């Protein structure tokens, strides 16, 4: 169960406590996240919403070990990641995080197969085992027939499927999706969301997703809003908003 009040149990898969992030821009200190708390259990699908600049991507970057917080701690599956060295954090990312980006971020000179194989190159799997994993992942996203296509030979929706295959191929602890449908038409966006839902329901994946689109966010188990650097649950936000209107 998702909690944002710091009352989560020690069994939470992801636990953030007092998470703050401050940027310095032109001598000015900008506080993006303020003592934020978050607890996510395994198998949950969480959507983060909020206005531009509210810190959604910053939160995702911190949870994914791409950035370090100014204060607070993050624990994932019992590992405290906030004090890890850069090289250890890199290794941790490879093992625990699957990334899905808005702009797909595929390597244009590599085929779908080679792109999906990349995370497996960091494991001790043999070539044959890697091949099997890649084919399985591309099968899950429905691209078995596009295995040797380059990204430029694929549609936006197909590229995003390859990205998802790359994110799941090493069976990471959780997936971080940053606007996964932000660059797609509605039909493709629906297909991608169906795929993500399948990953959650069929493969019991834990997914944290940032989106601007309420329709997309509605497919998640829980939608959390980032307001002034802290997380607020959607129903509570409604209460706060309607309370404010009265």
């Amino acid at each position, binding site marked *: 169960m998702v909690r944002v009040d710091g009352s989560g149990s020690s069994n939470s898969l992801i636990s953030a406590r007092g998470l703050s992030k401050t940027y310095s821009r032109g001598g000015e200190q900008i506080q993006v996240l303020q003592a934020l708390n978050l607890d996510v259990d395994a198998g949950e699908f969480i959507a983060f919403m909020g206005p531009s600049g509210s810190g959604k*991507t910053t939160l995702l*970057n911190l949870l*994914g070990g*791409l*950035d370090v917080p100014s204060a607070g701690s993050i624990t994932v599956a019992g590992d405290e990641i906030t004090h890890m060295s*850069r*090289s250890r954090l*890199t*290794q941790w*990312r*490879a*093992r625990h995080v699957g*990334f899905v*980006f*808005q*702009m797909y*971020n*595929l*390597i*244009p*000179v*590599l085929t779908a197969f*080679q792109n999906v194989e*990349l*995370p497996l*190159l*960091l494991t001790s799997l043999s070539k044959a085992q890697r091949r099997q994993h890649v084919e399985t992942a591309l099968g899950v996203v429905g691209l078995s027939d596009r295995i040797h296509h380059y990204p430029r030979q694929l549609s936006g929706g197909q590229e995003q499927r390859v990205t998802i295959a*790359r994110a799941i191929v090493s069976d990471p602890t959780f997936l971080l999706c940053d606007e996964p449908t932000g660059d797609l038409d509605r039909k493709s966006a629906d297909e991608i969301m169906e795929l993500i839902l399948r990953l959650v329901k069929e493969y019991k994946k834990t997914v944290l997703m940032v989106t601007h689109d309420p329709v997309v966010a509605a497919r998640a188990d829980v939608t959390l809003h980032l307001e002034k650097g802290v997380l607020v649950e959607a129903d509570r936000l409604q209460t706060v908003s309607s309370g404010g209107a009265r």
Partner: protein
Amino acid sequence: MAIPVVYNLRSVKERWTSAVVAVLGIAGTVGVFIAMLSLAFGFKATLVSSGSSDNAMVRRAGSTSEMDSSISLDQIKIMEDFPGVAHANGSPLVTPEVVVIAPFPLRSTGTDANVQVRGVSPRALEVRSKVKMIAGRFYQPGLAELVVGRNVDKTYAGLSMGDSVKFGGGTWQVVGVFDAGGSAFDSEVWCDAHVLNQIYHRPENIYQSLTVHLDSPSSLRQFKDAATADPRLTVDVSPEIEYYAKQSRTLTKLIVVLGGIVAVVMGIGAVFGALNTMYSAVAERSREIATLRALGFGAGSVVFSFMIEALLISLVGGLLGAVAVLPLNGLTTGAMNWQTFSHLAFAFRITPFLLGLGLLFALVMGILGGFFPALRAARRPVAPALRAM
């Protein structure tokens, strides 16, 4: 495991126009580098091959070359009886020699160049077994006849078989052409030492050097010890090979130093070309690099990957430069031998060692041109670069 090399290969292919600039810069530098060294190596090899391991060269003690040396006939007679001297038909295999410099017109420009004219003994061909007559015959003792090296025949006007030529106050007849196996003798004219001394009004019993054919290379020690121990002699004895190697040093050093300066200056330019190519590669692919980093590839992998790319580019440049200068191999050119002031024909010698050295130079340029951009690629913050367009 490292980032796959196929990523670098295809990335270079995608951005080939940028890579071509670096490749050409490195190719040009490596080409000049190999050409310069092959010139120096060719010059050195020509002189060194003039010597034989079983020949000793005797000169006046303290002389720097044959030009400033003198040995009397009496001294020569003493040395003929020393141990280690090879004999044939009951007489010692030695050749007392004199050298003069005479100007002859070059076929290519018509201008005069100095030719070394060597007065030798009739046994010169036995002492220097590498030298073979390829046309005509050897001179007849007592006659003003010349035999010319094969380069002389090709390079100078009026010194071909059958030609009659005037120099030193005498008229000479060219009666033969010899092949000295690509050594310095190929650029010389030989004649009877007695005749040369007479025509040049030199003392009859004074020579400039004595070349001694030894029983074996190991006999040099015996011969040298005898010459050193004899109070009647004030001579230097050296292996013939060493004498010619020493002669090649000044010009070889000059070519290597000048060539080195040119190659280093060009190399700096090529490194900047490589730097530019690699920095732009890093800038254009910042999102790809960030993605690889996000997926878990470490900073070391990124540095390694971009170094591999820089080395690939430099290797192609190096190979191209090496292939471009290969046709120079064997091409004959000429230079002044500063020890004898005579013109010496020699060929560019592009050896596998030189090609390897050229490729090594290319790789060094690749390392210098790739390291800092690779470091920049690895140090870039991942999160902002992931969203870079």
